[in-house]
């Protein structure tokens, strides 16, 4: 709730709406996605109709409406990576995990995303696992990389994470 309060405090009057994106960014940073509950709370706090909030949420691809997998695998499909076997890498990863881009594995361990240019075009094709960038990745490298990022089990639930923070 902290994010919402600071944003609401700074933006008021006719320009209150400009705080909306900021608040949504804050919520996503906190939860990894924008939970519906939080969106409703935001609507009340900023006196912005919920429909307006979802209108914005669904427009911007950065915002997620569902909880993502715990480890995020982002395959680059920028121009350079696309021309240098990025799609082959994506295909292989899809087969390996059995999911499509934008989806999480059933156990919630991995999230598969496609991104456009990570700015390391000299390393194409690029795979980013959470914040770690792997360069010149070939499908045969995948098992080794996945081993470095084993599924996180017994992850504390969101609420626990908050109370310890």
């Amino acid at each position, binding site marked *: 709730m902290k994010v919402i309060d600071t944003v609401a405090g700074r933006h008021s009057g006719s320009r209150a709406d400009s705080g909306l994106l900021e608040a949504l960014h804050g919520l996503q940073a906190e939860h990894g996605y924008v939970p519906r509950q939080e969106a409703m709370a935001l609507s009340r706090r900023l006196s912005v109709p919920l429909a307006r909030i979802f209108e914005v949420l669904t427009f*911007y691809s950065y915002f997620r409406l569902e909880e993502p997998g715990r480890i995020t695998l982002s395959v680059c499909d920028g*121009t*350079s990576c696309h*021309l240098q076997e990025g799609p*082959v890498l994506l295909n*292989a990863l899809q*087969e390996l995990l059995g999911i499509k881009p934008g989806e999480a594995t059933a156990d919630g361990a991995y999230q598969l995303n496609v991104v456009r240019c990570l700015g390391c*075009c000299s*390393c194409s094709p690029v795979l980013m696992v959470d914040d770690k960038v792997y360069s010149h990745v070939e*499908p045969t490298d995948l098992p080794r990389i996945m081993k470095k990022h084993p599924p996180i089990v017994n992850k504390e639930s969101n609420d626990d994470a908050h109370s310890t923070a």
Partner: protein
Amino acid sequence: MSTTTPVKDPAALASWATEQKAQQDSGAPILIRVSMGTCGIAAKTGSVLEVLQSEVQSQQKEGQIEIVQTGCMGLCHSEPTIEVYDRQTRQSIFYGNVKPEHAPAIVREESSQAYGVDILTQNWYRPEEEKADVATAQARIVLRNTGRINPESIGDYVGTAGYTALAKAITSMQPDEVIQTVIDAGLRGRGGGGFPTGVKWQFAANQPAGEKFVICNADEGDPGAFMDRAVLEGDPHAVLEAMAISGYAIGAAKGVIYIRAEYPLAIERLQCAIGQALEYGLLGDNILGSGFDFDIEIKYGAGAFVCGEETALIHSIEGLRGEPIYKPPFPAVEGLWKRPTIVNNVETLANICAIVRQGPEWFRSIGTEKCPGTKVFALAGKVKRVGLVEVPMGTTLRDIVFGVGQGIANDRAFKAVQTGGPSGGCLKSDDLDTPIDYESLRALGSMMGSGGMIVMDEDDCMVNVAKFFLEFTLDESCGRCTPCRVGNKRLHEMLVKVCEGKADMRTLEKLRQLSDVIKETSLCGLGQTSPNPVLSTLRQFRREYLDHVLNHMCTAGVCSALISYEINDRCVGCTLCARNCPVSCIDGSPKELHTIDKELCIKCGVCQQVCKFHAVDKH
């Protein structure tokens, strides 16, 4: 740093600069610059930095060697890159592909060459400080500090004439003089449009006084471009200073930087720079005692390419969906919160300080008559030296691709170079000798765009390239107008058919016709330029389209529907391919010829990659 109180006036700034310069000159005799841009960090430059630091300690050279982290040096092809600069002789050695195990030798040798480490040639100069050398293709105005100073130190920036342009503008020039200087310099917008920057400022300045805004467009959406990010990561103060100057010129007291949320490092460096500038009174109230106030706020994008369009960007800052609207009224008249607003690209702004410092004639002496100055390109794809390059306008594509980029990697043949990203087109080898500027590229059916430049070789299928860009446009169309939303979808479907070998000659004609309609009837630049990749490849690489349509062939071997994998009789039955195939569609017992079940094969190419006997063919 000596001053922690705000810098009171231009004289105080000058003496701080002298102090910084003296400090820089009298520092340790050797300065090692370590390139810590996103690409450097991805290449594990961090571990090189750590070992360098500990080597300096263990070899007890703290007095001789100073290590500084900088932004991207532009030498992305050989990250981790470091520069060993000798303060006495003013000579540098650039080392590329540095590994942690090289660090002891580098520290030991100081400014003489360390054995066994790749040496790179520096092929750029800084027109403000150095004379042009015929051998150097690049000229750095925008990137003058990027890769040279510590972006997190305002003192470093001040030591290289930082904030003197702002001081000069606000204390010794009238706002209209500043605007005239920018008009005379002939600077044109580097965000793609090429509109004269000074003229845009003039429009906003001519609006009645009152609240006005300056926006820096850092939404860099082209999926193969990273110029703006490199500037923000490597020299953030240059952008802040330029925004303040433009604010003074048009009478605005507030600036907004709209940056992609996907650029965490750039955001961090900007926040750090804004904090420092406020602390030293180089932003905020009554800057340098001049009575001029200027504040800068950062706003984050959220993954929408169309928000790079200025009216969409303004909507996004206002907390709305980022949909463009019809112009006029232009933002300079009615922009953010319906107030006069100028929107300028990062690279455009990064030219401003040098223009104010050196004057318009100096700027005009670089580049061409119609397009003075330089352009930064993110050179990527199949060239040997992938990286960030800055060349004078009017340089030929050949000089960039084969000069700075040193030609095609892996001994393949050059096929095309793509400029302008999803709004641009592909140029063939016949066009390589064209001096590039906004007009010449448009005449060839492409665009300058923001500066993505992707080189393609014989293994790239041009139909597939067109399809790739269209997929991007489809994802990114805001959906407001039908030609863009639906038309591009139909174009994409037709291209898919071509790639699958299911199209006929009528499809090619329809592709062209529909492209023309979309260009003419879409509202914003996204839709108006979205068919460019299709039209340009259709015109320049018609042969390849015909191969797909008439011969069901993809000569580059990219379109998966038109290729197949087969195992030839070189197979010794080692079973390696079968064990690696992700869908287990390879059959065969050990020591026997293996076969691929083509029905199940997903054409991933893994088998070909792993086979040590060249026994897998691609047809």
